[in-house]
């Protein structure tokens, strides 16, 4: 199915808030002054929410989905464990979604970000930038090659270390599906200690962010693979009248 057909579908299923972190999560200190105090006001989806940005696949450069190579345009390779992160993007109706733009960013193998405000003393990797992007294919599949990011300490009032993670920014077929999240790695003991991961109260929901080692896609003598499937909000299949309450 072509994405423009998906776009012609109706409103989104209401978001299941129990799956997501609350705005105020005191163990994650940055949320204290940045969480709205008033409850969100529900609104019926209109065209403004059920449509969303479209991207020309030609924006992608040769190395955009290969973070091991893209910082040095293929001339040098980033330092660390080479991994492949791949999966499919679905909506809640189990339909795969093609043409989804996925942007990723991450720390290097030492846990250091190439960012002026990262004060962790671990070394920068001269061959690693830490960003990439790709677009899902006609079957909703995506794949990156990268370096497994290191854990890193962060200021949160205690001895806090982030588990290894990759940040994901995902564009579905509508602005209401816009999502930023983080992918973790199977078996990481820091996940259950992490105040940010634990902003998600439902353990089953958190588990959906944990990529699983995938020996089928692992390439011998080259790179281990991790599978991470992405589920975005589902949509009603037909457009129905955008009735506002009280109208």
């Amino acid at each position, binding site marked *: 199915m072509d994405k423009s057909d998906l776009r012609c579908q109706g409103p989104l299923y209401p978001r299941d808030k129990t799956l997501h972190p609350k705005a105020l999560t005191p163990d994650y200190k940055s949320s204290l002054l940045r969480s709205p105090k008033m409850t969100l*006001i529900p609104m019926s989806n209109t065209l403004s929410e059920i449509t969303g940005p479209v991207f020309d696949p030609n924006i992608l450069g040769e190395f955009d989905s290969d973070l091991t190579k893209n910082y040095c345009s293929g001339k040098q390779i980033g330092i660390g464990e080479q991994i492949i992160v791949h999966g499919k993007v679905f909506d809640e109706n189990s339909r795969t979604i093609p043409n989804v733009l996925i942007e990723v960013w991450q720390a290097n193998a030492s846990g250091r970000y190439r*960012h002026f405000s990262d004060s962790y003393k671990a070394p920068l990797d001269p061959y690693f*930038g*830490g960003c990439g992007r790709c677009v899902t294919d006609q079957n909703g599949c995506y794949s990156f090659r990268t370096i497994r990011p290191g854990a890193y300490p962060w200021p949160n009032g205690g001895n806090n270390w982030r588990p290894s993670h990759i*940040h994901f*920014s995902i564009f579905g077929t509508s602005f209401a599906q816009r*999502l930023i999240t*983080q992918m973790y790695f199977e078996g990481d003991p820091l996940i259950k200690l992490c105040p940010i991961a634990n902003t998600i109260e439902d353990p089953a929901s958190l588990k959906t*962010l944990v990529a699983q080692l995938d020996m089928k896609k692992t390439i011998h003598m080259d790179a281990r693979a991790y599978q991470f499937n992405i*589920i975005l909000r589902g949509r009603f299949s037909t457009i129905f009248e955008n009735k506002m309450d009280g109208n």
Partner: protein
Amino acid sequence: MHKLQRLKEIPSQTAGPFLHIGCIPSQIGLNTLGGIDLGSVLLSKKTKGKRITLTGKVFDGKNIPIRDGMVEIWQADANGLYRTSETKLDGSDLNFSGWGRSHCDFESGSWTFKTIKPGPVMMKNGKWMAPHISFWFVARGINLGLNTRMYFSDEHSLNEKDPLLQELKGTKRIRTLMARKIAENSYEFNIYLQGKNETIFFEI
């Protein structure tokens, strides 16, 4: 046809303080993804409509502007049509993507968009939405991106008839959705995360 299994949306996590690396890398001097950030340019010479500049800041609970966040906007074109396809003709202005992205300035916290004023949008029921722009804000400390809508304070008669604004009529907070005209073709829209001016955020 087999019945499809119902899945659950994956949860959100904060974008964190380093979102620039992946979303707006050139703002921190990273040219890894071609050097032009997606959403940084909404207009070309051929775009139809009245050019406007939108600026604002996002204030935290201590009324301090957030300097490590990112704002995205989504809007209709000058005729009130949304872009729905890169390849198919849908009647919308092919020279206008409708989507923009700006970081909060690292010193002042200001974000800026150079765009066009959207036209009123006709709903499926024949009613008209007043010109408006959808906003999405993410930053460190925000666990789930925040959605709000910006309307134009100088569109009084269209705002009066806007179904969402009508629904919110009577709440004082409705003014938090209004961009203030600060100069000809220039509007300011400040967002307050907490406090007496807390902006209305929507569950969309």
